[in-house]
């Protein structure tokens, strides 16, 4: 089970962000920042993912999809809200179609601010989320 916290797989979903944070998520995986060298792989399958990276302020049409993605992920799992919009709604908080932060829909473990988020901050936040993942994993073992 140690492999999960050593090389977690991430899944990214855009819940109505402007794209800025999404391309920074991908930039983390590409050669300049290259988190893939640690075994972090971007997957499209929620059942394979350990960390869910969500950007954007969740609009009404996305609510169900975000919930479904979260529920389909296997335990232990952590959610990271990427960027100002995912944390609080950001600049779009006053828009009529925006719910606010991701935590209005699913529980969030790490908040990573920035507009657009910087890759360094993102990596830092994901490392913090890994600590939470480890704790969750230990708690799961205790329950057994």
């Amino acid at each position: 089970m140690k492999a999960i916290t050593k090389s977690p797989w991430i899944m990214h979903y855009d819940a109505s962000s402007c794209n800025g944070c999404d391309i920074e998520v991908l930039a983390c995986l590409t050669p300049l920042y290259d988190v893939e060298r640690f075994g972090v792989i971007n997957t499209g399958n929620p059942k394979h993912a350990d960390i869910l990276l969500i950007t954007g302020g969740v609009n009404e049409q996305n609510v169900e999809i975000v919930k479904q993605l979260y529920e389909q992920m296997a335990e232990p799992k952590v959610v990271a809200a990427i960027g100002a919009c995912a944390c609080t709604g950001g600049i779009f908080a006053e828009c009529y179609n925006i719910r606010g932060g991701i935590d209005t829909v699913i529980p969030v473990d790490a908040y990573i601010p920035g507009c657009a988020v910087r890759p360094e901050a993102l990596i830092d936040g994901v490392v913090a989320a890994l600590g939470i993942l480890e704790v969750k994993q230990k708690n799961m073992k205790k329950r057994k």
Partner: protein
Amino acid sequence: MGERTVIPFGPQHPVLPEPIHLDLVLEDETVVEAIPQIGYIHRGLEKLVEKKDFKQYVFVAERICGICSFIHSLGYCLSVEKVMGIEVPERATFLRTMWSELSRIHSHVLWMGLVADGYGFESLFMHSWRLREQILDLFEETTGGRVIFSACEVGGVRKDVTVEQLQKIKSTMISFEKELQEITNVFLNDASIKSRTKGVGVLTKQMAYDLGAVGPTLRASGVASDLRSTGYAAYGKLNFEPIIETDGDCYARTAVRIRETFQSIDLVKQCVDMMPEGDVRVDVKGNPDGESFIRLEQPRGEVLYYTKANGSKFLERYRVRTPTFANLAPLLEMLKGCDLADVPVIVLSIDPCISCTER
């Protein structure tokens, strides 16, 4: 006639960084019809003009889309300046043009990476994104931001560029051009890539024109329509020709974007060489009153901005029609009769930007 099946494509799909949903109606492996469902990124940005005043709204306009962020803020500023009759200093127009062209390079190279990932060529994806970082470094050095850099404001630009920075931009462009040549050779000449793009998703000239395609999608079908020729910002003083291809398939659309990237490199060099001295902004006094209509060329095509102001500090209406919206109708035509396996490549070939489309 075989039995029909419906396969959902999206909203969460590995090849799409953004959510769009297509219901693909299949007969065996062939797509008969594609029914789009949009609204996953609709935020209601246009209504925000009632809550943010016209000087603040430039930051919202910039966040219509994070990839062509600068061009959206430029479009907003141009429309408000047109309403208010503001004359922007010449140096600011050149800086705006330079940043627009750098944005276009960044957007096209980003797209090359995504499309390479679309047909499973992962190392090419990595190489494209590695090159793109050089452009982001230039943004960061000149403005402080990587993808959203808030450099434009009503009345000019917020940041000036030093002589050393201009020289660095030029020298980066020269080395970037050489490195880009290496990867674009693969896109244009690799046999396995050609087999995925040649003759796939054909859009004829007549269809492209009738369905109202814009940008590289239209130019790849042989229509020379490039809004930069209208000479907004400093484009009137630069030397360039719209790039066209005639085949109208995915290969032609790739070729148009690649040639445009080299053209943009040339335009950035021209901007650096011709950069005039002087101020970069003028003070804006009073509130806008009136209407304006502005058309610009985004990396993805023609974008329209309509602005209506009533003399208060809040605009009455701000309307944007973005290129991907115009390209969705042609996309649905291209998808008819294609193989299921070609769907990702065809969808990516219009360079969809959903957050622009839905705002």
